[in-house]
């Protein structure tokens, strides 16, 4: 994580002055995907970069220490070693940006990562995930316990009832959604959030991070997200301190694409290790 958001006086006039033209933003969202693509080596390099932004996530009711362990191992070795060697990228220490689990699984994750000998941070959803509709007291307690267990990043679900009544909260990162909604990370919403991040930076000098989560499954999607951030905020936001992708199945599709780039063949299911 970068330096924390130092915060600023709450000035609601900033929010009331913001104008968002919905149809225009929808058009921009369509254009961004059509106007920027990367191919060949550029695609491979961008995909490897995308790996380093992934918060490799499992948020299932039936998570146990064994699949958490597998997840953590995959976080450490996201792409097959021989594929990285072929691209001359094996010594770049490519891992995912973090693993992201429920609070009760933080212990398992910390243990598994230690066993794997790496310092990938553990992120935990907390504070009444995914609805945020629990008491402030239990929400805070949940965060405290997760931190105690070794989580270094907390994804908080804000109390949306407060937002809808105009009472805002601050943060270091903003996330499109929990990933548990029917509609999750979409480009139009992301464009509005990215522009808000830029405006806040211009006004205060604070860089806020951005994390789209939910529904980002294909390698192609991840490339579009990278170029969206590059186009709207610039290269300085393209680092794990300021950009994360919350995803669970994305990584395997990226690995398949890398496999194809290196070998020129499409991989079978069993060619790549599961996560």
């Amino acid at each position: 994580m970068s330096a924390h958001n130092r915060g600023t006086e709450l000035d609601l006039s900033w929010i009331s002055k913001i104008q968002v033209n919905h149809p225009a933003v929808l058009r921009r969202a369509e254009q961004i995907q059509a106007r920027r693509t990367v191919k060949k080596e550029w695609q491979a390099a961008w995909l490897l970069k995308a790996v380093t932004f992934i918060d490799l996530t499992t948020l299932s009711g039936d998570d146990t220490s064994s699949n958490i362990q597998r997840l953590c191992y995959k976080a450490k070795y996201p792409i097959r070693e021989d594929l990285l060697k072929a691209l001359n990228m094996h010594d770049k220490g490519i891992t995912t940006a973090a693993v992201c689990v429920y609070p009760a699984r933080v212990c398992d994750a910390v243990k598994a990562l230690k066993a794997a000998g790496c310092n990938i941070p553990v992120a935990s959803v907390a504070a009444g995930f995914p609805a945020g509709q629990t008491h402030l007291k239990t929400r805070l307690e949940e965060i405290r316990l997760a931190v105690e267990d070794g989580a270094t990043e907390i994804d908080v679900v804000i109390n949306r009832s407060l937002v809808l009544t105009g009472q805002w909260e601050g943060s270091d990162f903003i996330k499109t959604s929990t990933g548990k909604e029917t509609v999750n990370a979409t480009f139009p919403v992301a464009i509005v959030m990215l522009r808000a991040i830029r405006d806040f930076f211009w006004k205060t000098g604070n860089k806020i991070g951005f994390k789209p989560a939910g529904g980002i499954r294909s390698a192609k999607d991840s490339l579009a997200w990278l170029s969206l951030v590059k186009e709207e905020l610039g290269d300085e936001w393209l680092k794990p301190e300021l950009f994360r992708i919350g995803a669970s199945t994305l990584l395997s599709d990226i690995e398949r694409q890398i496999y194809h780039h290196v070998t020129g063949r499409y991989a079978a299911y069993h060619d790549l290790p599961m996560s």
Partner: protein
Amino acid sequence: MAATRAGPRAREIFTSLEYGPVPESHACALAWLDTQDRCLGHYVNGKWLKPEHRNSVPCQDPITENLASCLQAQAEDVAAAVEAARMAFKGWSAHPGVVRAQHLTRLAEVIQKHQRLLWTLESLVTGRAVREVRDGDVQLAQQLLHYHAIQASTQEEALAGWEPMGVIGLILPPTFSFLEMMWRICPALAVGCTVVALVPPASPAPLLLAQLAGELGPFPGILNVLSGPASLVPILASQPGIRKVAFCGAPEEGRALRRSLAGECAELGLALGTESLLLLTDTADVDSAVEGVVDAAWSDRGPGGLRLLIQESVWDEAMRRLQERMGRLRSGRGLDGAVDMGARGAAACDLVQRFVREAQSQGAQVFQAGDVPSERPFYPPTLVSNLPPASPCAQVEVPWPVVVASPFRTAKEALLVANGTPRGGSASVWSERLGQALELGYGLQVGTVWINAHGLRDPSVPTGGCKESGCSWHGGPDGLYEYLRPSGTPARLSCLSKNLNYDTFGLAVPSTLPAGPEIGPSPAPPYGLFVGGRFQAPGARSSRPIRDSSGNLHGYVAEGGAKDIRGAVEAAHQAFPGWAGQSPGARAALLWALAAALERRKSTLASRLERQGAELKAAEAEVELSARRLRAWGARVQAQGHTLQVAGLRGPVLRLREPLGVLAVVCPDEWPLLAFVSLLAPALAYGNTVVMVPSAACPLLALEVCQDMATVFPAGLANVVTGDRDHLTRCLALHQDVQAMWYFGSAQGSQFVEWASAGNLKPVWASRGCPRAWDQEAEGAGPELGLRVARTKALWLPMGD
């Protein structure tokens, strides 16, 4: 080829996260050129035409590569193409609309099947970003064909009373997309016309389209494409078989063509200039508006540059965002899938370099940014600000890819600045305040207005312009009428008189002398020029005698001159905003009041008509019919304009019918009352104000009507100037602030009016000496009048929460 060039290895890209080339193969375009042995001729009558002993010019992509050579047409090739189109017209126009609809649909299907060839060829040769051609133009080309196929299939019912003009000559400018051709050939072919398109040297995409259409079979010769130099334009335009010339290009070329076609057989439709306008208010979503600027000027969508007006209070913010955004634009080979802008060749590059250098020397600040190859013919996105409004650069058209930004203080001032140019093409308004957006949208004098969007297009929405952007239209119903004429009217013939001296026509007024006292049973006729709501003495302080049918003196009318015309036009302008702002209902009410007044004056009017030789019955009928015309137009105007629904757009597009402004009408000699009223009624009903020259043989009827207008109408609505017809015609036709002119009179006068209209490119309607049956519904009050009396504006209103 670019794909194999040695790029940075993955390691470096991993760190820099730069974009790489995304080359699109143009192998199929080259293969197609090979089928022509890399030598392109013309496509005429369903066959390739490659005459011998013709000059040829190289066809290059904008960077350097020499692709093929193109034969240049000569006059005899033009004649052959026009003859082929004329022969094809007989069969094509005789078929029922459904047959034409099927043919257009088949062409759309062929384009769909070979779209890769079309887009790679187009992008390769023009240098425009392939994404824009592939996702925009090629798709729209198919939609255009489908839309116009539907129009063709319903032609017999929906366009009853109209018939196709004949062979259309289409002239396209050096830098254009093949889509510009599609916009025009689709409506022309749909209604039954056939086309000869003259494209500039080295434009293979139109030739490919003609080939695809020609190979469809039964109708070769409906679309013929010649490539040739600009010197062929007048030759094509004056071919006797050509019924209409549709010209797209630079304003000065359009003006010259207007002059040279005066009195010729062919009608002329002009679509001139490429500049667009964007109004950014302080309630706009500035980031989205900045994307609008990119769409307009830096995305290879529009052909030209952009004038950008920014409200002062958001100037800094908008400029900062604009410059930030410019830094992320990418330019490169058109066939690269990830560039915003391609290169448009040396000529475009020279033009913009000259403009920017001059702007700098006149004190402007120039900002350039973006990832752009440094060598020619690439040119970076350019933002020009602080250009003094009075400097020469501020007056000329902004070239691609330049945006000229200037501030405004209030919405009212924005309108003054925006309307203060001779151009009237397209504009967008960015404001989140509905009332303000509509106020600006309605107030802008342009053909298309987008609210919070820029550059949207659809086959069902008319696109065109006003003022010196030319008043021809494509798309929607207006596009169809461009190629139709009322059924049964005599064919437009050439009225060219080679020895008409434009410098002296109507210059001098023959002196008039007293012809004795007025005699007769009727009361003394009204005297004076009816200007600004009252009768005034003419500047010349002289009068001309009007004789009745038996040669006796009927009365004197004032001898109007240039100064009187100037005063009348001024009075009409003063009255215009108030009158145009009235609701159609209110305007109708006044026309009905005038009708009632005419009926009260019936006996006077009838007796004056009798003195001009009419039977009493016929005279009374003429008065009654005149009153009916006033009432009919009052009723008709309330049903004008309508809403269009466009695919892929939430929200309506309004097709508005706006008044032209000050309309000058020179009335025919015959039907001194009925013709006058038949022309006055639609003009006023649609919100125009008028300056009218009444029948020269008997202006007294019009002056009688003026007596009623003086009491019924606000001052200045209708101004009537009597005097020497040619002289008044000259004054009106040369007046730069008259927005349109109708002339019903001699062939020579018509030719002069057409020639003189080139000054401000006002739309003109000249009878060329052909009489009209004013008492017949079709000619006296038909839809043609309703079409010519107002101009269309398309107002796009996308919606979203």
